[in-house]
Protein backbone atom coordinates (compact mmCIF):
# COMPACT_ATOMS: atom_id res chain seq x y z
CA UNK A 1 0.00 0.00 0.00
CA UNK A 2 1.17 3.54 -0.82
CA UNK A 3 0.52 6.13 1.83
CA UNK A 4 1.13 9.87 1.68
CA UNK A 5 0.70 11.83 4.90
CA UNK A 6 0.56 15.64 4.73
CA UNK A 7 3.06 15.72 1.88
CA UNK A 8 4.15 19.15 0.69
CA UNK A 9 6.79 20.09 -1.81
CA UNK A 10 8.07 23.62 -2.21
CA UNK A 11 10.50 24.79 -4.86
CA UNK A 12 12.43 27.99 -4.25
CA UNK A 13 13.38 30.00 -7.29
CA UNK A 14 14.80 33.48 -7.80
CA UNK A 15 11.31 34.57 -8.84
CA UNK A 16 9.78 33.24 -5.64
CA UNK A 17 8.41 30.13 -3.99
CA UNK A 18 6.35 27.52 -5.84
CA UNK A 19 4.17 25.19 -3.80
CA UNK A 20 4.05 22.15 -6.10
CA UNK A 21 2.27 19.99 -3.50
CA UNK A 22 0.36 21.26 -0.46
CA UNK A 23 -0.58 18.95 2.37
CA UNK A 24 -1.45 15.93 0.21
CA UNK A 25 -2.77 12.94 2.17
CA UNK A 26 -3.90 9.81 0.38
CA UNK A 27 -3.74 6.02 0.40
CA UNK A 28 -3.51 3.78 -2.64
CA UNK A 29 -4.23 0.13 -2.05
CA UNK A 30 -2.23 -2.62 -3.68
CA UNK A 31 -3.46 -3.61 -7.14
CA UNK A 32 -5.40 -0.39 -7.77
CA UNK A 33 -5.26 1.68 -10.92
CA UNK A 34 -5.15 5.36 -10.01
CA UNK A 35 -5.22 8.26 -12.41
CA UNK A 36 -4.04 11.75 -11.55
CA UNK A 37 -5.55 14.62 -13.51
CA UNK A 38 -5.35 18.37 -13.34
CA UNK A 39 -4.19 21.42 -15.26
CA UNK A 40 -0.57 21.83 -16.36
CA UNK A 41 1.74 22.88 -13.57
CA UNK A 42 -0.57 21.74 -10.77
CA UNK A 43 1.96 19.27 -9.35
CA UNK A 44 0.91 15.99 -11.01
CA UNK A 45 4.39 14.95 -12.06
CA UNK A 46 5.86 16.08 -8.75
CA UNK A 47 3.34 13.86 -6.96
CA UNK A 48 4.19 10.89 -9.18
CA UNK A 49 7.93 11.34 -8.72
CA UNK A 50 7.46 11.81 -4.96
CA UNK A 51 5.62 8.48 -4.78
CA UNK A 52 8.45 6.87 -6.77
CA UNK A 53 11.19 8.10 -4.45
CA UNK A 54 12.64 10.64 -6.85
CA UNK A 55 11.46 13.92 -5.29
CA UNK A 56 12.09 14.36 -1.59
CA UNK A 57 9.06 16.09 -0.08
CA UNK A 58 9.66 19.29 1.87
CA UNK A 59 7.40 18.02 4.64
CA UNK A 60 5.28 14.92 5.19
CA UNK A 61 5.81 11.22 4.82
CA UNK A 62 5.59 8.81 1.89
CA UNK A 63 5.45 5.12 2.72
CA UNK A 64 5.36 1.98 0.68
CA UNK A 65 4.04 -1.02 2.61
CA UNK A 66 4.50 0.90 5.87
CA UNK A 67 8.15 1.65 5.15
CA UNK A 68 9.04 5.30 4.88
CA UNK A 69 10.52 5.83 1.43
CA UNK A 70 12.54 8.92 2.35
CA UNK A 71 13.98 7.37 5.50
CA UNK A 72 15.85 5.02 3.17
CA UNK A 73 19.37 5.94 2.08
CA UNK A 74 20.00 7.16 -1.48
CA UNK A 75 21.18 3.63 -2.29
CA UNK A 76 18.10 2.15 -0.62
CA UNK A 77 15.77 4.32 -2.70
CA UNK A 78 17.67 3.39 -5.87
CA UNK A 79 17.16 -0.28 -5.00
CA UNK A 80 13.47 0.36 -4.34
CA UNK A 81 13.11 1.94 -7.80
CA UNK A 82 15.08 -0.88 -9.36
CA UNK A 83 13.14 -3.76 -7.87
CA UNK A 84 9.69 -2.49 -6.97
CA UNK A 85 8.91 0.57 -9.08
CA UNK A 86 8.73 0.99 -12.84
CA UNK A 87 8.69 4.46 -14.41
CA UNK A 88 7.17 5.18 -17.80
CA UNK A 89 7.98 8.63 -19.18
CA UNK A 90 6.05 10.73 -21.66
CA UNK A 91 9.11 11.16 -23.89
CA UNK A 92 10.04 7.47 -23.41
CA UNK A 93 13.62 8.36 -22.37
CA UNK A 94 15.16 5.52 -24.33
CA UNK A 95 18.95 5.54 -24.61
CA UNK A 96 19.53 6.57 -28.23
CA UNK A 97 22.69 4.58 -28.94
CA UNK A 98 21.33 1.30 -27.54
CA UNK A 99 19.14 -1.15 -29.45
CA UNK A 100 15.58 -1.90 -28.31
CA UNK A 101 16.83 -5.13 -26.73
CA UNK A 102 19.69 -3.39 -24.89
CA UNK A 103 17.38 -0.61 -23.66
CA UNK A 104 15.18 -3.23 -22.02
CA UNK A 105 18.27 -4.97 -20.62
CA UNK A 106 19.35 -1.81 -18.72
CA UNK A 107 17.28 -2.36 -15.53
CA UNK A 108 18.05 -6.08 -15.66
CA UNK A 109 21.77 -5.30 -15.89
CA UNK A 110 21.46 -2.86 -12.97
CA UNK A 111 19.69 -5.60 -10.99
CA UNK A 112 22.73 -7.83 -11.50
CA UNK A 113 21.14 -10.39 -13.81
CA UNK A 114 23.58 -12.36 -15.98
CA UNK A 115 23.66 -11.40 -19.64
CA UNK A 116 21.81 -14.49 -20.94
CA UNK A 117 19.05 -13.96 -18.41
CA UNK A 118 18.86 -10.25 -19.31
CA UNK A 119 18.54 -10.92 -23.02
CA UNK A 120 16.03 -13.76 -22.55
CA UNK A 121 13.74 -11.62 -20.39
CA UNK A 122 14.09 -8.55 -22.66
CA UNK A 123 13.37 -10.64 -25.75
CA UNK A 124 10.27 -12.17 -24.13
CA UNK A 125 8.92 -8.74 -23.20
CA UNK A 126 9.59 -7.19 -26.59
CA UNK A 127 8.10 -10.18 -28.42
CA UNK A 128 5.07 -9.90 -26.13
CA UNK A 129 4.65 -6.33 -27.36
CA UNK A 130 4.95 -7.39 -31.00
CA UNK A 131 8.49 -6.10 -31.41
CA UNK A 132 10.21 -9.43 -32.08
CA UNK A 133 11.39 -8.12 -35.44
CA UNK A 134 12.75 -4.88 -34.02
CA UNK A 135 15.09 -6.17 -31.32
CA UNK A 136 18.24 -4.78 -32.88
CA UNK A 137 16.73 -1.47 -33.96
CA UNK A 138 17.78 1.75 -32.28
CA UNK A 139 15.09 4.15 -31.00
CA UNK A 140 15.52 6.51 -33.97
CA UNK A 141 14.68 3.61 -36.29
CA UNK A 142 11.40 2.89 -34.50
CA UNK A 143 8.01 4.56 -34.79
CA UNK A 144 6.63 6.53 -31.83
CA UNK A 145 4.31 3.66 -30.93
CA UNK A 146 7.17 1.16 -31.07
CA UNK A 147 9.35 3.40 -28.90
CA UNK A 148 6.51 3.59 -26.38
CA UNK A 149 6.31 -0.21 -26.29
CA UNK A 150 10.08 -0.53 -25.81
CA UNK A 151 9.82 1.96 -22.94
CA UNK A 152 6.96 -0.05 -21.45
CA UNK A 153 8.99 -3.26 -21.78
CA UNK A 154 11.86 -1.54 -19.94
CA UNK A 155 9.41 -0.41 -17.23
CA UNK A 156 8.29 -4.00 -16.71
CA UNK A 157 11.73 -5.62 -17.01
CA UNK A 158 12.21 -6.29 -13.30
CA UNK A 159 8.51 -7.11 -12.85
CA UNK A 160 7.78 -4.11 -10.57
CA UNK A 161 4.73 -4.19 -8.33
CA UNK A 162 4.18 -0.45 -8.85
CA UNK A 163 4.04 1.20 -12.27
CA UNK A 164 4.22 5.01 -12.41
CA UNK A 165 3.37 6.51 -15.78
CA UNK A 166 3.78 10.20 -16.58
CA UNK A 167 1.51 11.29 -19.45
CA UNK A 168 2.02 7.97 -21.24
CA UNK A 169 -0.41 8.85 -24.03
CA UNK A 170 0.88 12.40 -24.51
CA UNK A 171 2.71 11.57 -27.74
CA UNK A 172 0.40 8.85 -29.06
CA UNK A 173 -2.39 8.86 -31.64
CA UNK A 174 -5.84 7.45 -30.69
CA UNK A 175 -5.09 3.94 -32.00
CA UNK A 176 -1.86 3.70 -30.03
CA UNK A 177 -3.59 5.18 -26.99
CA UNK A 178 -6.16 2.37 -27.22
CA UNK A 179 -3.40 -0.23 -27.36
CA UNK A 180 -1.67 1.25 -24.34
CA UNK A 181 -4.95 1.38 -22.47
CA UNK A 182 -5.47 -2.30 -23.10
CA UNK A 183 -1.93 -3.01 -21.83
CA UNK A 184 -2.64 -1.08 -18.62
CA UNK A 185 -5.86 -3.08 -18.18
CA UNK A 186 -3.89 -6.33 -18.49
CA UNK A 187 -1.29 -5.13 -15.98
CA UNK A 188 -4.08 -4.09 -13.62
CA UNK A 189 -5.70 -7.50 -13.95
CA UNK A 190 -2.32 -9.06 -13.21
CA UNK A 191 -2.43 -7.30 -9.85
CA UNK A 192 0.01 -4.44 -10.41
CA UNK A 193 -0.55 -1.10 -8.75
CA UNK A 194 -0.61 1.55 -11.45
CA UNK A 195 -0.52 5.32 -11.04
CA UNK A 196 -0.96 7.33 -14.22
CA UNK A 197 -0.68 11.07 -14.70
CA UNK A 198 -2.83 11.96 -17.68
CA UNK A 199 -4.75 14.59 -19.60
CA UNK A 200 -6.54 11.88 -21.54
CA UNK A 201 -10.22 11.68 -20.42
CA UNK A 202 -10.61 8.07 -21.58
CA UNK A 203 -7.57 7.00 -19.57
CA UNK A 204 -8.59 9.16 -16.59
CA UNK A 205 -11.92 7.34 -16.33
CA UNK A 206 -10.22 3.97 -16.49
CA UNK A 207 -8.96 4.01 -12.94
CA UNK A 208 -10.35 2.61 -9.68
CA UNK A 209 -9.60 6.01 -8.25
CA UNK A 210 -9.29 9.42 -9.90
CA UNK A 211 -7.28 12.03 -8.13
CA UNK A 212 -7.67 15.64 -9.12
CA UNK A 213 -4.90 18.08 -8.36
CA UNK A 214 -5.34 21.83 -8.28
CA UNK A 215 -2.56 24.15 -7.22
CA UNK A 216 -0.85 21.32 -5.39
CA UNK A 217 -3.93 20.19 -3.47
CA UNK A 218 -5.40 16.77 -4.11
CA UNK A 219 -9.03 15.67 -4.09
CA UNK A 220 -10.33 12.17 -4.79
CA UNK A 221 -13.06 12.37 -7.44
CA UNK A 222 -13.90 8.69 -7.84
Amino acid at each position, binding site marked *: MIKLESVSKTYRHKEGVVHALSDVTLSIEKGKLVTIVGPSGCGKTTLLLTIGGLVHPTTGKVSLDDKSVYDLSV*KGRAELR*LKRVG*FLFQTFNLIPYLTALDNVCVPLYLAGKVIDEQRKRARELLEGFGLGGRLEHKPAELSIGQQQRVALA*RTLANDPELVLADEPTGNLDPAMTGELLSTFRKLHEAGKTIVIVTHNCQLADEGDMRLELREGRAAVRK
Partner: protein
Amino acid sequence: MSGLNQLLPAARVVTIKQIVSTQQKTNDLMDNFALVFLVIIVIVGVVSIANYMSSNVYERRKEIGTLLAVGATPGRILKMFVLKAFILGFSGGVLGFLAGTGLAMVLGPRIAKVSVDPLPAMIPWALAIAVGISVLASVLPARHAANLDPALTTQET
Protein backbone atom coordinates in the same frame (compact mmCIF):
# COMPACT_ATOMS: atom_id res chain seq x y z
CA MET B 1 96.24 27.41 -18.43
CA SER B 2 96.98 31.17 -19.04
CA GLY B 3 100.57 30.22 -20.02
CA LEU B 4 99.26 27.79 -22.64
CA ASN B 5 96.94 30.46 -24.03
CA GLN B 6 99.89 32.86 -24.36
CA LEU B 7 101.97 30.18 -26.12
CA LEU B 8 99.14 29.36 -28.54
CA PRO B 9 97.41 32.73 -29.20
CA ALA B 10 95.56 31.35 -32.29
CA ALA B 11 94.00 28.55 -30.25
CA ARG B 12 91.57 28.44 -27.34
CA VAL B 13 92.65 26.06 -24.64
CA VAL B 14 89.98 24.56 -22.40
CA THR B 15 90.08 21.74 -19.90
CA ILE B 16 88.04 18.57 -20.11
CA LYS B 17 86.35 19.69 -16.89
CA GLN B 18 85.18 22.90 -18.60
CA ILE B 19 83.81 20.93 -21.58
CA VAL B 20 81.95 18.53 -19.31
CA SER B 21 80.61 21.43 -17.26
CA THR B 22 79.32 23.22 -20.39
CA GLN B 23 77.74 20.02 -21.68
CA GLN B 24 76.17 19.45 -18.27
CA LYS B 25 74.68 22.96 -18.32
CA THR B 26 73.25 22.33 -21.80
CA ASN B 27 71.76 19.03 -20.64
CA ASP B 28 70.26 20.67 -17.55
CA LEU B 29 68.74 23.40 -19.74
CA MET B 30 67.22 20.79 -22.05
CA ASP B 31 65.85 18.86 -19.04
CA ASN B 32 64.26 22.04 -17.70
CA PHE B 33 62.71 22.78 -21.09
CA ALA B 34 61.36 19.24 -21.25
CA LEU B 35 59.91 19.60 -17.74
CA VAL B 36 58.22 22.90 -18.64
CA PHE B 37 56.75 21.30 -21.78
CA LEU B 38 55.58 18.30 -19.75
CA VAL B 39 53.84 20.57 -17.22
CA ILE B 40 52.17 22.54 -20.05
CA ILE B 41 51.07 19.31 -21.76
CA VAL B 42 49.68 17.94 -18.49
CA ILE B 43 47.74 21.16 -17.78
CA VAL B 44 46.37 21.30 -21.34
CA GLY B 45 45.47 17.59 -21.09
CA VAL B 46 43.66 17.98 -17.76
CA VAL B 47 41.72 21.02 -18.97
CA SER B 48 40.80 19.39 -22.32
CA ILE B 49 39.67 16.13 -20.75
CA ALA B 50 37.74 17.90 -17.98
CA ASN B 51 36.06 20.07 -20.61
CA TYR B 52 35.20 17.05 -22.77
CA MET B 53 33.82 15.10 -19.81
CA SER B 54 31.76 18.07 -18.59
CA SER B 55 30.24 18.47 -22.07
CA ASN B 56 29.59 14.74 -22.20
CA VAL B 57 27.79 14.81 -18.83
CA TYR B 58 25.73 17.81 -19.99
CA GLU B 59 24.75 16.11 -23.26
CA ARG B 60 23.87 12.87 -21.48
CA ARG B 61 22.02 14.36 -18.50
CA LYS B 62 18.65 13.00 -19.62
CA GLU B 63 20.16 9.54 -20.02
CA ILE B 64 21.83 9.84 -16.59
CA GLY B 65 18.51 10.94 -15.06
CA THR B 66 16.78 7.97 -16.68
CA LEU B 67 19.39 5.55 -15.35
CA LEU B 68 18.95 7.01 -11.85
CA ALA B 69 15.16 6.76 -12.21
CA VAL B 70 15.29 3.10 -13.24
CA GLY B 71 17.43 2.24 -10.25
CA ALA B 72 21.09 3.10 -10.85
CA THR B 73 22.82 4.39 -7.74
CA PRO B 74 24.83 7.64 -7.89
CA GLY B 75 27.91 5.52 -7.16
CA ARG B 76 27.29 3.48 -10.30
CA ILE B 77 26.98 6.64 -12.41
CA LEU B 78 30.25 7.91 -10.91
CA LYS B 79 31.96 4.60 -11.71
CA MET B 80 30.57 4.70 -15.26
CA PHE B 81 32.26 8.03 -16.00
CA VAL B 82 35.50 7.17 -14.18
CA LEU B 83 35.69 3.92 -16.15
CA LYS B 84 35.16 5.87 -19.35
CA ALA B 85 38.02 8.20 -18.31
CA PHE B 86 40.22 5.17 -17.57
CA ILE B 87 39.55 3.65 -20.99
CA LEU B 88 40.15 7.01 -22.72
CA GLY B 89 43.37 7.55 -20.77
CA PHE B 90 44.63 4.02 -21.40
CA SER B 91 43.86 4.16 -25.14
CA GLY B 92 45.35 7.66 -25.37
CA GLY B 93 48.46 6.48 -23.51
CA VAL B 94 49.01 3.51 -25.84
CA LEU B 95 48.35 5.52 -29.02
CA GLY B 96 50.41 8.47 -27.74
CA PHE B 97 53.38 6.25 -26.90
CA LEU B 98 53.29 4.50 -30.27
CA ALA B 99 52.82 7.73 -32.24
CA GLY B 100 55.41 9.64 -30.19
CA THR B 101 58.04 6.89 -30.47
CA GLY B 102 57.36 6.45 -34.19
CA LEU B 103 57.65 10.18 -34.89
CA ALA B 104 60.81 10.51 -32.80
CA MET B 105 62.42 7.57 -34.65
CA VAL B 106 61.57 9.08 -38.03
CA LEU B 107 62.19 12.77 -37.34
CA GLY B 108 65.03 12.49 -34.80
CA PRO B 109 67.77 11.56 -37.31
CA ARG B 110 66.44 14.02 -39.92
CA ILE B 111 65.94 17.11 -37.78
CA ALA B 112 68.25 16.74 -34.78
CA LYS B 113 70.73 14.33 -36.37
CA VAL B 114 70.33 11.91 -33.46
CA SER B 115 69.15 8.33 -33.65
CA VAL B 116 66.21 7.46 -31.43
CA ASP B 117 65.59 3.98 -30.08
CA PRO B 118 62.23 2.88 -28.62
CA LEU B 119 62.14 2.88 -24.82
CA PRO B 120 59.82 0.03 -23.78
CA ALA B 121 60.61 0.78 -20.13
CA MET B 122 58.68 4.04 -20.56
CA ILE B 123 55.41 2.24 -21.45
CA PRO B 124 54.22 1.82 -17.83
CA TRP B 125 55.05 5.48 -17.15
CA ALA B 126 53.25 6.68 -20.26
CA LEU B 127 50.16 4.64 -19.37
CA ALA B 128 50.20 5.62 -15.71
CA ILE B 129 50.50 9.33 -16.52
CA ALA B 130 47.84 9.22 -19.27
CA VAL B 131 45.37 7.23 -17.14
CA GLY B 132 46.13 9.34 -14.06
CA ILE B 133 45.54 12.62 -15.90
CA SER B 134 42.36 11.35 -17.53
CA VAL B 135 40.85 10.00 -14.30
CA LEU B 136 41.90 13.06 -12.29
CA ALA B 137 40.35 15.41 -14.85
CA SER B 138 37.12 13.40 -14.86
CA VAL B 139 36.47 13.21 -11.13
CA LEU B 140 34.55 16.49 -10.87
CA PRO B 141 32.38 15.98 -14.00
CA ALA B 142 31.68 12.39 -12.86
CA ARG B 143 30.62 13.61 -9.40
CA HIS B 144 28.40 16.20 -11.06
CA ALA B 145 26.78 13.41 -13.14
CA ALA B 146 26.20 11.27 -10.06
CA ASN B 147 24.53 14.16 -8.26
CA LEU B 148 22.17 15.17 -11.08
CA ASP B 149 18.54 15.42 -10.03
CA PRO B 150 16.65 12.75 -12.01
CA ALA B 151 13.38 14.55 -11.32
CA LEU B 152 14.63 17.45 -13.45
CA THR B 153 16.66 15.66 -16.09
CA THR B 154 14.04 13.04 -16.96
CA GLN B 155 11.56 15.80 -17.75
CA GLU B 156 13.79 17.48 -20.33
CA THR B 157 12.75 17.12 -23.94
